[in-house]
């Protein structure tokens, strides 16, 4: 019984380390491909559109909703201590330091990460990547690298947009619904947020999340089993693994660098 448990644990650990090694190799191949000519500018721009522009609605709506909830909860809590004039600071710091990058990463994983995995996985299942290999064209160079790079590029931009809409949502609830003075909301926000610390840190966090989601989504698609069930498993795995990884990395980035 105990021996079996130890054996299983050893097996899981060994597979986990093996998988980490494969992801590292895949990541380094993708990095090399991204800096090797010819530059895939057209493919990159297409992917920025697919992953970024097509995510705008979900990011804006979610940002607005989260900001409104923060505004409502924040106001109701702060008013108990007579500190409702700090609503701008509470909404701003929560969104900029934490909720903006994390929510954006989770939403982008669900919308764009899963789509990336499904697209690459389908290309595996329909031998499109093998077709490229037979033409001496690297699938990592042509397909994977532009998608991963686009994910890295759009994540900070989407996060910034999420934050802007969140701040607007907080303003709508705090000022228009709860009757807080607009100038108080904005000045509280301005005085609490430090650009070099909070805003740049937030963008850095989003950038790291972009790397993680881009790498996991493309890797899962690239290594998916060439069947419909395999593509389905890979897509589910992307959402689960990328979401959990983002949350774990969020903790460590916050704990280690205070961002």
């Amino acid at each position, binding site marked *: 019984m105990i021996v079996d448990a130890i054996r299983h644990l050893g097996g899981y650990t060994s597979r986990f380390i093996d998988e980490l090694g494969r992801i590292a190799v895949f990541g380094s191949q993708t990095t090399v491909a991204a800096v090797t000519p010819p530059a895939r500018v057209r493919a990159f721009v297409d992917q920025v559109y697919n992953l970024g522009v097509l995510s705008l609605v979900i990011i804006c709506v979610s940002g607005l909703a989260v900001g409104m909830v923060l505004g409502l909860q924040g106001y109701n809590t702060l008013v108990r201590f007579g500190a409702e004039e700090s609503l701008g600071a509470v909404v701003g710091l929560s969104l900029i330091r934490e909720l903006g990058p994390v929510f954006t990463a989770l939403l982008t994983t669900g919308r764009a990460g899963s789509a990336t995995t499904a697209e690459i996985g389908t*290309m595996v299942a*329909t*031998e*499109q990547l*093998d*077709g*490229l*290999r*037979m*033409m*001496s*064209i690297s699938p990592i160079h*042509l397909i994977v690298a532009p998608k991963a790079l686009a994910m890295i590029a759009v994540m900070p931009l989407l996060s910034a947009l999420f934050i802007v809409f969140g701040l607007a949502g907080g303003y709508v609830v705090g000022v228009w619904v709860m009757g807080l003075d607009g100038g108080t909301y904005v000045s509280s926000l301005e005085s609490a947020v430090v650009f070099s610390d909070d805003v740049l840190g937030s963008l850095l966090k989003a950038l790291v999340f972009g790397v993680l989601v881009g790498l996991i989504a493309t890797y899962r698609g690239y290594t998916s089993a060439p069947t419909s069930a395999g593509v389905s498993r890979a897509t589910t795995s992307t959402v689960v693994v990328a979401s959990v990884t983002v949350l774990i990395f969020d903790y460590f980035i916050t704990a280690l660098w205070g961002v």
Partner: protein
Amino acid sequence: MEASPHAQDAAVALTDVEMSFDGRPVLHGLTCSFPRGKISVVLGGSGAGKTTILRVIGGLVRHQKGKVMIAGQDTSRFGDREMNEIRRKLGMMFQGGALLDSLTIFDNLALPLRERTKLGEPAIADEVRKQLTAVGLANVDGLLPGQLSGGMIKRAALARAIITNPEILMCDEPFSGLDPISVKRIEALLRRINRELGITMLISSHHIPSTLRLADQVILLQQNHLAAGTPEELRASKDPRVAEFLNEEVDETLVDEDMFRSIDPERAPQARHLR
């Protein structure tokens, strides 16, 4: 498994190749050769390893044992970079076409020229239109693969496979899933490509009539058994396994009576008719 004597001037030669997937053997010490400039068809039932042979030659899967010689080079230990050089001599038409579904037919054909040659866009456009006309698809260049029929996809895939003038063309099940007219059309195209361009062809198929009409050499893979020869030699073969396959005869004694007994007549009334 051993076929005809090893031809020294073969375009492709496999020696004692073993290949298994997850411990399940697919190729058992396969030895065969594909003569230069000829059409060789690997014939066999589903799961016989026909596609695996093409994928081993193309380096898409790595065999565990044996030697694969392509144009005089042993590719068995080749890395990705060396294999990419060898693949410049190969063209492959996949069973499902393997066209990039996000690109138009024009861009699918233009892709290998853009990536592998220094041709300018006007020259690429000329070449693509020439190839599309040659395969009878002159007016579909702006369509996506998803908008074409199965036969048209196969012809587009064939055009893409030969657009870079490969020395060796591999076709995986070019006749599968096609109506008789499309089969004849693909067959005629393959014959023309072979005769006019002198391309060595390796075709995997289980379509017996086309194989017998088209092939200069047939390699029959069946239940770990391999037979090779011209279509006439195989037709004249006394080997019952070869005759059974070529005549498409099914030994009814192989149909398991227990299969019918296991059907519950109460739950499946139509099973009574079977019995």
